[in-house]
């Protein structure tokens, strides 16, 4: 282990570990924090995209006559005349380059006008002719298009097998063989995707304010698409209204905004209408799961098989890695974890908070609960019984693993009493459930700079993006501690692609990746200052860091965060409505660097998991080929009244094999397992096992109409 991976000494200044309020809090509560569409350069125009209204086929004509005749319309870009783009790795960004329509909602034109209302009217006035071909948007078992990909999201092998899981399953005295279904889900960050692009032809410079999770990658992609040197492109993202994975890489809005500013010679804002998002910014792909668990009567697992079917688009392969958690969670010698995918005429799926783990752990942790039922065993004890000494798939030791401690602590705090019978209060059936959580530790190289000014203040520059995580705050804390100065001596500059390259806010890796660079730059500056004698020069002193070497080192450890969720629910036998009464999570995620913002992250993930369990559903209409639930009236994210007492706790975890700060990343683990805990509680309450999310009243009522046939 290199010296830089030693955990920071907490004794000195100790800003880390304290609940510092978000540094931008005042800007956010006074409305002065500006987001991408709120930049207002002179002569700004507005773009409004036109989505395809067929699910498969091609555009045969675009009639712009009526649109161009409207007052204030500057241009209508079509596949026939839009700027030709350079190459990109992501084919979803090759917009208006040809006439094919790979899915409904694919953009086929962009109207630009000098007002928002004019752009919208112009988009509606564009007449598009199509030649439609038959489409197929329905994922199902036995679909002839299913294939095993080479790898799944995250770079994992699609298929892993150890021993002989089929024989071990057949020989197991206690068996569970169950299927679960998770529908497509949508990120729906509160700020719709938006960009304000400004091409300065005189300077030959492109400036873009983008609602994104990282400006470095947006700059690189735009430079490639528009054939500009990277130093002629600046991408800014000071404030971003959430992303949850849907803004991790550039999405169509920013490409269209740049096309429009280049065409019109004016700054152009493209702010996507909420109804467009489902089809063009990525979604969590639906997953169909079959889980087979075999166990001895004492609960020892002898066989685990998790098979996942999912869809991708015909534009780009993205495979939700939902079987991967089975390679991490439980000690079992004979196992198979495998994925198959079908390319359909659907929008391209992408990352949504904890891709893979979220649907995968719903299925695996529901199946574990069913196994506990079959064994007549406390589901907490079943998980404890099968806690592995090393990572099952790789055999590597864990850098730290405190799942058992999370389960024990959660059980105590929640008042878990094991296999207790359901309660009844009038028409309400009440029960509790438990599920585990896991999320891997990722890290990527980053750069940062630190400057000491003669007046005793410090400027730290790192191209982090604070999408609401609290990154600005915790990175400032890291800097202050590494410099050995009070927090208010540090100013942090972020959200600017002109700063050294960094990875995106994703994979729960932001704080680790950016923070390591900040730590190293500030440590180097501290060393420089220690060697400096006399007053600082007027320009101050600077130091920079690049963690390419250190962050890419592959440690000989399996590194994951773990957690446990406990839920108490009530199911109404009259209406079928399920409501969560209590939700409690305990997490082991390394060192918690800011308890205030960390708690909000954990709870936020748990609330999104509650939505996944009870309300969030999207479906592809077989006849028209589009998502039926495209807005916030149809796609039900949890509202305040849906969310009861939610508690998040954590246990102290000292892991020296992570990064200088000692944190594992906390942005995603809160959602993982939450839906399983709620589903398991519903099963306990009702005596019926529902295996298709979300647990809406229609499904619950239908289940309750079937007589209870014994223990669940």
């Amino acid at each position, binding site marked *: 282990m290199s010296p830089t991976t030693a955990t920071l000494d907490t004794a000195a200044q100790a800003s880390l570990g304290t609940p510092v309020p*978000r540094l*931008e*809090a*005042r*800007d*956010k*509560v*006074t*409305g*002065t924090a*500006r*987001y991408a*569409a*709120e930049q*207002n350069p002179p002569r700004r125009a507005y773009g409004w995209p036109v989505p395809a209204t067929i699910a498969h086929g091609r555009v045969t004509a675009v009639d712009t006559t009526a649109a161009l005749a409207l*007052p*204030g319309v500057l241009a209508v870009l079509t596949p026939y005349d839009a700027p030709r783009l350079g190459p990109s790795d992501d084919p979803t960004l090759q917009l208006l380059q040809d006439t094919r329509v790979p899915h409904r909602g694919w953009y086929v034109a962009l109207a630009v006008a*000098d*007002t*928002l*209302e*004019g752009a919208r009217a112009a988009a509606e006035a564009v007449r598009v002719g199509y030649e439609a071909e038959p489409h197929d948007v329905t994922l199902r078992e036995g679909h002839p298009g299913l294939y095993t990909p080479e790898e799944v999201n995250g770079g994992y092998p699609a298929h892993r097998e150890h021993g002989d899981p089929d024989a071990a399953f057949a020989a197991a005295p206690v068996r569970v063989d169950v299927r679960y279904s998770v529908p497509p889900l949508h*990120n729906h*960050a*509160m*700020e*719709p995707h938006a960009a304000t692009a400004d091409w300065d032809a005189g300077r030959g410079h492109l400036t873009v304010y983008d609602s994104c999770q990282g400006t470095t990658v947006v700059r690189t992609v735009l430079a490639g698409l528009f054939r500009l040197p990277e130093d002629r492109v600046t991408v800014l993202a000071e*404030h*971003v*209204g*959430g992303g*949850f994975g849907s803004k991790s890489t550039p999405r169509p809005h920013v490409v269209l905004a740049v096309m429009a500013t280049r065409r019109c010679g004016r700054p152009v804002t493209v702010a996507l*209408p*909420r109804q467009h998002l489902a089809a063009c910014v990525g979604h969590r792909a639906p997953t169909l799961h079959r889980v087979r668990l075999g166990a001895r009567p004492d609960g020892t697992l002898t066989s685990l098989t998790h098979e996942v079917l999912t869809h991708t688009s015909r534009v780009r392969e993205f495979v939700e890695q939902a079987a991967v958690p089975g390679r991490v969670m439980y000690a079992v010698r004979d196992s198979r974890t495998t994925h198959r995918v079908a390319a359909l005429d659907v929008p391209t799926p992408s990352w949504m908070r904890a891709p893979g783990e979220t649907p995968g752990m719903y299925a695996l942790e529901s199946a574990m609960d069913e196994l506990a039922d079959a064994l007549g065993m406390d589901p907490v004890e079943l998980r404890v019984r099968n806690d592995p000494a090393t990572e099952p798939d790789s055999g590597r030791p864990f850098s730290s693993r405190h799942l058992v401690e999370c389960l024990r602590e959660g059980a105590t705090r929640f008042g878990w009493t094991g296999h207790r019978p359901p309660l009844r209060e009038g028409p309400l059936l009440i029960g509790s459930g438990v599920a585990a959580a896991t999320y891997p530790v990722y890290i990527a190289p980053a750069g940062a700079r630190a400057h000491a000014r003669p007046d005793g203040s410090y400027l730290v520059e790192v191209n982090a993006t604070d*999408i*609401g*995580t*609290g990154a600005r705050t915790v990175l400032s804390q890291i800097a202050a501690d590494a410099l050995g100065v009070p927090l208010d001596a540090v100013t942090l500059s972020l959200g600017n692609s002109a700063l050294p390259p960094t990875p995106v806010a994703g994979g729960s890796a932001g704080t680790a990746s950016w923070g390591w660079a900040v730590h190293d730059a500030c440590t180097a500056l501290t060393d420089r200052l220690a060697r400096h004698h006399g007053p600082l020069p007027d320009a101050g002193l600077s130091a920079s860091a690049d963690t390419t070497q250190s962050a890419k080192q592959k440690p000989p450890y399996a590194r994951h965060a773990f957690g446990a969720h406990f839920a108490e629910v009530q199911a109404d036998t009259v209406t079928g409505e399920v409501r969560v009464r209590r939700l409690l999570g305990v997490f082991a995620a390394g060192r918690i660097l800011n308890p*205030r*913002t960390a*708690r*909000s992250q954990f*709870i*936020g*993930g*748990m*609330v*999104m998991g509650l939505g996944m369990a009870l309300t969030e559903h999207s479906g592809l209409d077989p006849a028209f080929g589009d998502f039926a639930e495209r*807005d*916030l*009236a149809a796609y039900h*994210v*949890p*509202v*305040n*009244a*849906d*969310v009861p*007492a*939610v508690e998040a706790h954590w246990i102290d975890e000292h892991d020296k094999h992570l990064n200088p700060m000692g944190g594992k990343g906390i942005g995603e683990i809160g959602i993982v397992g939450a839906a399983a805990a709620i589903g398991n509680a519903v099963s306990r309450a009702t005596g019926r096992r529902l295996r298709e999310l979300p647990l809406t009243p229609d499904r619950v009522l239908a289940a309750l109409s079937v007589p209870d046939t014994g223990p669940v």
Partner: protein
Amino acid sequence: MAHATDPPAPGPAHGTPDHAAAGDHRSRVSLRVNGARRDLDLDHRVTLLDALREHLDLTGSKKGCDHGQCGACTVLVDGRRANSCLLLAVTLDGCGITTVEGLAAPDGALHPLQRAFVEHDAFQCGYCTPGQLCSAVGALREAAAGHPSHVTADAAQAGPAVLTAEEIRERLSGNLCRCGAYPAIVRAVADAGTDPAATGTAVEAAV
């Protein structure tokens, strides 16, 4: 909602596009925004939200859905909360509008709800926050005025509603927060709700 009957006052047109010409469907509108009179010449299609954001550069009010489904655009119209994306600005001539920019005092002192939101970390990305705050001001006023909600046990009972956590959740369910800050929002509103000043706003106090 009260509408002034005074004729529109003359004033400089704001945000008039290049093509403004006879035959367009436009009107002059006078709003009192955060205590200041603002005279606008607006396309009839302009919503109050877009008038604020695009014509007055008051971008604190957010566009989350533009269809009255998320509450991010919530402002106070003549003292009552409303989704500004569902109101055409041309219909509001003479109305008083309070946005998030009008909650704090002119000296910068935060409104009790703003303070509580900071203290309780009642937001993450901040995009729903202006709407949550304006909605909370309206909700506190409604409760003080004795308006019952869906969860009020005795809707016939006179007098101010007691703002339990359940009441706050219900009354703020028109404001979505995808970051899931609801538990902190409830604590913040409960905390600020004990301050009599929380039902007021600085700009309304000044006029």
